[in-house]
Structures are given as structure tokens and as C-alpha cells.
């Protein structure tokens, strides 16, 4: 018999954070190392090792071409936790609510040009499909990400995409009341599925949604499809709206861009972390090169249809490229 070892001493924090010299923040206490399914790479789930979902997670997460020894070291630059997410977004929603309220009181929609209703039906209200696709794509990244700190960013992003979709839905109903004959709330699916202005985005988003490798899904969504949607459907559409006296839409898209900026911040931080590992640059560049031509087509088809703007497509693509340039992927 060996001597019984000394009892473990209590710690000031979780044992997995105890080696850090700094006192852990609330963010670290509640966000780090929460996925138990990454503990055993051979069997993510505590069941038969050959089950379909085991293979899915082994192949598309554990054996992703995007590699890092310790994804758990990832930190959200905004250190967002659930509690602060709601604080932030409840405040943001109060802002949007007061916009909707004030503009409605002032009869904003009654003052819109009749032709502008047709533009909105064609280029704005079908956006709920695009935003919803981003919501679905974010939920995929959330369920496949190899660390909880990445999952959380993608989870809050999923919520934000539902937020954008909700704004569109709300405005769609208001517009249908202001202009019952236009077809708001009725024709969007048909337009999304058939109008040439949307087919580029539809193709980009459908293909992004079937990128199963988690690294590819992240890159396709957060580095290409989402920024492209944001530059075209938030930035450029917002600009076009302002140029056509639709002040409300301009303000809503501005509010949504705040979320988009946060999403780009965490995506950039993740890319930065990935680039510390040899080989990841080529992998990420490969993903971007694969989806960028689709994004380009999408943005060109959509943005060149925006009235009142001269270089909307170029500007939108420049916006995506500016984001890429800051990622140090060249």
C-alpha cells in the first residue's frame, strides 16, 4: 500500500483555469471548455462509436482541414455572455422600436413614392429568406465548432440574424398596409425563387449551407456570404433607401450593421488565431476563393438593381475585400 495522497486543495476558480495568473473574468468562468464532446476524438458521443453522428463530428469537426491544437484558447473579442447579450440587444431593440413607432406616427410610409414600393418588394422584403439562411448557417457553425467560445459567438450571431429577419417581417406587414396592392407579404417567396436579382444570393447561400466541414462552413458563412449580404442588403440598400427618402430603412440597416461589425470582429479574431498554425492560411484562402466568385455574382446581380446609386456593386464588393484585407490572408 502506498500512502494516500494529500487531498486536493480548493481553488479560486475552475481547475482548468487555475494555472492562469490572471483572475478569470465572468466571461471565462462561464464560457470556456464547455464542450465535452471534444474530449475523446474517436468517439465524440457516449454511444456506439460508429453511429452516424459520431462519423459526422469526427469527419466535419475533428478532422477538419482547419486545424489548431487548442481551439479552447479562442476568446470572443467582445467577451459576450448571455446576460450581456440581452442587455445589449434589448437596448438595440428599444432603439429600433422607437424608430418604428416614431416613423409610423409621422406617416412615413404614406409619404413614400409609389415606385419605391415596387423597389422594396423586389429588393427589400424578400431579404427575410437571405437573413434566415444566415440564421440557419450560423446555427450550423454553432453546433459544429470545436470550442464553446466559438460556439457562443455563432449562437449570438444566430439570434442576431433572426433579429434582422424580424425587422424585415415587421416592415413587410407595415408596407402591406400602406400599399395593399403591391403584394407585400405575398410575393416574396416567388421573387426570392425566381427574380434574377436574387439568384446569385440564393446560390451562394444554398451552397454555403451545405458546407459541412466546420472550418469551411465558418469561412463560407462568416468570411464570404455574410459580409456579402451585409454589404449589399444593409450598406448599399440602406444608402439607396436614404437616396429615395426611405429614412426609416436607412436607419434600420444602420442598426443591423452594428451586429454585423461584432460578427466580423469575432470572425477576424478566429482567423487570426487560425493563422498561427501552418497550413491554415492556404485552407482559409481556398475556402474564400471557392465562394468569392459566387458572392461576386450575387452582389453584382443584386446591387446593380438598386436605384439611385452609381457604383453599388463595386462598393459592396470593395467592402467585402476591405474586410478580407484586414484578415492578413494575402
Amino acid at each position, binding site marked *: 500500500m502506498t500512502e494516500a495522497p494529500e487531498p486536493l486543495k480548493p481553488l479560486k476558480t475552475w481547475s482548468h483555469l487555475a494555472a492562469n495568473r490572471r483572475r478569470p473574468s465572468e466571461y471565462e468562468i462561464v464560457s470556456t471548455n464547455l464542450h465535452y464532446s471534444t474530449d475523446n476524438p474517436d468517439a465524440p*458521443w457516449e*454511444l456506439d*462509436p460508429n453511429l452516424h453522428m459520431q462519423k459526422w463530428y469526427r469527419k466535419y469537426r475533428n478532422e477538419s482541414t482547419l486545424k489548431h491544437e487548442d481551439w479552447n484558447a479562442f476568446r470572443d473579442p467582445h467577451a459576450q455572455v448571455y446576460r450581456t447579450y440581452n442587455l445589449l440587444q434589448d437596448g438595440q431593440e428599444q432603439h429600433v*422600436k422607437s424608430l418604428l413607432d416614431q416613423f409610423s406616427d409621422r406617416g412615413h410610409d404614406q409619404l413614400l413614392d409609389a415606385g419605391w414600393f415596387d423597389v422594396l418588394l423586389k429588393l427589400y422584403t424578400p431579404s427575410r429568406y437571405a437573413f434566415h439562411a444566415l440564421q440557419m448557417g450560423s*446555427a450550423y457553425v454553432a453546433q459544429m465548432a470545436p470550442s464553446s467560445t466559438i460556439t457562443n459567438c455563432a449562437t449570438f450571431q444566430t439570434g442576431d440574424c*433572426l433579429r434582422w429577419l*424580424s425587422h424585415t*417581417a415587421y416592415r413587410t406587414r407595415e408596407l402591406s398596409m400602406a400599399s395593399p396592392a403591391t403584394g407585400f407579404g405575398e410575393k416574396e417567396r416567388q421573387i426570392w425563387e425566381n427574380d434574377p436579382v436574387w439568384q446569385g444570393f440564393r446560390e451562394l447561400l*444554398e451552397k454555403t449551407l451545405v458546407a459541412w466541414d466546420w472550418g469551411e462552413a465558418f469561412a463560407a458563412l462568416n468570411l464570404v456570404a455574410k459580409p456579402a449580404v451585409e454589404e449589399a442588403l444593409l450598406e448599399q440598400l440602406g444608402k439607396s433607401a436614404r437616396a429615395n427618402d426611405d429614412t426609416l430603412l436607412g436607419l434600420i440597416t444602420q442598426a443591423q450593421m452594428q451586429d454585423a461589425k461584432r460578427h466580423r470582429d469575432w470572425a477576424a479574431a478566429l482567423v487570426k488565431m487560425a493563422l498561427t498554425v501552418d497550413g491554415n492560411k492556404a485552407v482559409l484562402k481556398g475556402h474564400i476563393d471557392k465562394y468569392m466568385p459566387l458572392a461576386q455574382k450575387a452582389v453584382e446581380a443584386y446591387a446593380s438593381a438598386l436605384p439611385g446609386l452609381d457604383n453599388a456593386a463595386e462598393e459592396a464588393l470593395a467592402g467585402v475585400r476591405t474586410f478580407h484585407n484586414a484578415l492578413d490572408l494575402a
Partner: protein
Amino acid sequence: MTLLKREDWYDLTRATNWTPKYVSEDELFPEEMSGARGIPMEKWETYDEPYKVTYPEYVSTQREKDAGAYSVKAALERSRFLDNADPGWISTMQAHYGAIALAEYAASTAEARMCRFSKAPGNRNMATFGMLDEVRHGQAQLYFPHSYTRRNRQWDWAHKALHTNEWGAIAARHFFDDMMMTRDAIGVSIMLTFAFETGFTNMQFLGLAADAAEVGDHTFASLISSIQTDESRHAQQGGPALKILIENGKKKDAQQMVDVAFWRAWKLFSVLTGPIMDYYTPLEGRKLSFKEFMLEWIVAQFERQILDLGLDRPWYWDEFMRALDETHHGMHLGVWYWRPTVWWNPSAGVTPEERDWLEEKYPGWNDTWGQCWDVIIDNLKNGKPELTGPETLPVVCNMSNIPIVGTPGNGWNVKDYQLEHEGRLYHFGSEPDRWCFQVDPERYKGHLNFIDRFLAGHVQPPDLMGGLKYMGLAPGEMGDDAHNYEWMSKYAKAAS
């Protein structure tokens, strides 16, 4: 104020199905992930979630809920409740947090499965809130116990438990992974949200909150009852999916998913919640017995919901009702006996007064379970504590991954339900456990429970110390009697 009402625009938020063109529908919604079971997309569009909430409503309500729960914690921090709390209640919290916090967080992934892969647009939006909810539950149930880590190393297990191969952690993962992590979207909606959350989270979060309030732990009570308000919302995702399955001739599938998830949830609760409610919680804090809580939350409410939806009672209902009197007593005895193998200090809960309570709630207790405790009490009285702890390993069920128990003493009925499948012999704690395996052996057949691993040589050295090391338990973490056997004084006095 001219804002639209929710019902004016809500439907547009869930008019989001489109026909894919650049990839096929089967690529966009792979059957193994979506689980549409051949029911066409338009049918899934009739999915109507009974609990409707919009994004702005969600962030506003949730902000308030968190403000409430966190401010109760802050306000009561100085009351030093824990300094004076009964050790049995501390064990209750430690068992709860370790088994629950990371599992709740994992449920966020299950919600994300529905959000991405369900063909029902309403399901995808509700699951978005569900994803957020489960992040909340994971994070809050880490934040609260974290303030206790300085007291005792066992609190570390609020975060650590599910990362280990401790037997209870294996059992919890096996259950949660089966029900929520490895199922298609519709499977998740039925097994996690309908079968588990509708019934059982009420037990854990409202039943336990009632006990917490009785023992004066208002921080814990307010936290878990606040969590339950989210559960009762997102638990309603399963009902409309069940309805669509039944309307489209898939009742058999639906029934089977409910029956498997329900039985498995019951077994996990028999080892986690049963002992907590009937033995760890101080006598004066026991609002109802475990069985009474089960009858209230599960039998009365859940059974009615099953029937209302057009499903049948699970085929094993009689066996379930019978087991309500029995299983958790055996689980408790086993956990206390193998106490070094858990991350909390099990409370024996068998003082003469507690035994009176047990006898009243479970007539015949003294003649069965009581007889085992009599032996333990005699050994402690006679200065032979070594006889009250483990030397051998229990037989562990290949489904529930918890020991196989039955009624001892005068009601002896312990039985190992065996099954040979493809040359391997499996052991089960009950007929329904064996049935769960038989309806889908591919899910389970290659899994090794703790005993299988021990026999396969994974546990080295192959003894108790090796076992504890394998389970990640060191002195300072492993359990011992919660009250340091002080309860024995009542028996010593009685004898002298």
C-alpha cells in the same frame, strides 16, 4: 404609439421555407440530420408552435429574468447561507450542478440541430431562442457554483464532471447524447423537448426549487425556477412536431421515440433526483417525496399530454408506476455505498426520524431497504466502517449505465436482464432498458459501460484506486458520508 401587434407580423417571421435550386432538398436537409421521415416540406410548414415569442420580446424578457436571478444571488451573498447549510443540501447542489450545467450547455447544440435542420420554419425560430436559452442555463449554472470553489474541491465538478469518466458522468452523457446530441432535428424535438423537458425538467427545476425554498436556499430556488420558465417555453417545440408525425402516419415512430426517451429520463432521475429529494434534502425541507413529485409532474401532467396528442401510454407504464416505489431507493443505497466514486458527499438520510418519514411515504421501506441499512448501521456501530464501503464492482446496465438494482430484504427481486447480441452479452437493469437496446442496437452495441471498460483493461491498476483515478477522482474530490457519520449518534444512544 403605433406599433404593430405581434400577431400582425409573427407569421411572416416563419414564412421562410423556399424550394432550393442550386442544391437539392436532400442535400440541404439530409435525412439523417433533418428526420423529415418522408413527410413533405409543405406539411412541415403547418408546424404551429403554441408558445409564440418574437425577438424583441425575447431579449427584453430574458434581460429581466437574468436581472432577477443575478440580483437575488448578489443580495444573498452576505447572508452566508452556505456556511450554515446542511451538508446534505450542499451535496444536492454539487450533484445537481455537476450533472446538469454542461448538459444544459450541450442542449444548445441540440437546439441548433433543429434550427439548422428542421423543415418546420416555426421550429427553426423557436430553436434559435432555445439555443440562447441553453447557453443561459449552462452559463448561469456555472457562474453560481463558481463562487463556491474556494470552499471545497468538489465544487470544481460543476464544470469538470461531464469531462470525466466518473460513472455517473458516463451515465449522464450516454443519456443526453442518445436523446439530444445524436438525433435528427425531429428526433430532438420529440425526445429532448417533448419527452424530457415537458415532464422531467419540471421535476428538477420546480420540484427541487420547492425544496430549496423550504431549506432557505433562495438563491438556488430563484435560479432554477427562472430556468424552468425557459424550459416550459422551448419544451413546447415537440408537440407540434408530434402532431405532424401522427397526422402523416408516423405514430409508431413517434411513440417509440417518446417511450425510449421517457424511460431513459426516468432512470437518470432515479439516480440523480430521487436520492436528492428523499435522502439528501434535510427532512424539514422536503416539500414532497420524490414519488409524490413524480406523480404530480410526470404521471398527472405528462400522461395527460401524451393522451391528448393521440399517443398511447408507454407500454411499460405499469412497470414504471411500480418502479416509482423502488428504483431510487436502490440507487441511493448504491451511491452511498460506493460513495468514493461520486463527486459529492452522499447523505445517508436514515436517522430514525427519516426512516419514519420513508416508511410513511413508501410503506414497507423498513422491511426492504431498511434491512440493508440495518446491516450498515450495525457495522458502523461495531467499529467496522470498512464493511460499509465497496470492495467489488456492481453490475452496471448497458443502457442506463447505472448499477442494476432491485428491492432487497423481504421484497427481494433483483434481476439482471440479459441479452446476447452479435456474440456479446449485455446486461440491463429492467425489461424496458433491454427493450431500448433492442429497438435500435446500432446506437448502443459498441459502447462500453464502466464495467466493460474495467474488464477490457482500461482501468489500471484494476482496483478501486485505479478505478478512482480513471474516474478523475482524487482525495478532496471523492465522496464520503455527508455528515461524517454523525447521524450514527442517534443509533449509538438508542443502543446504550
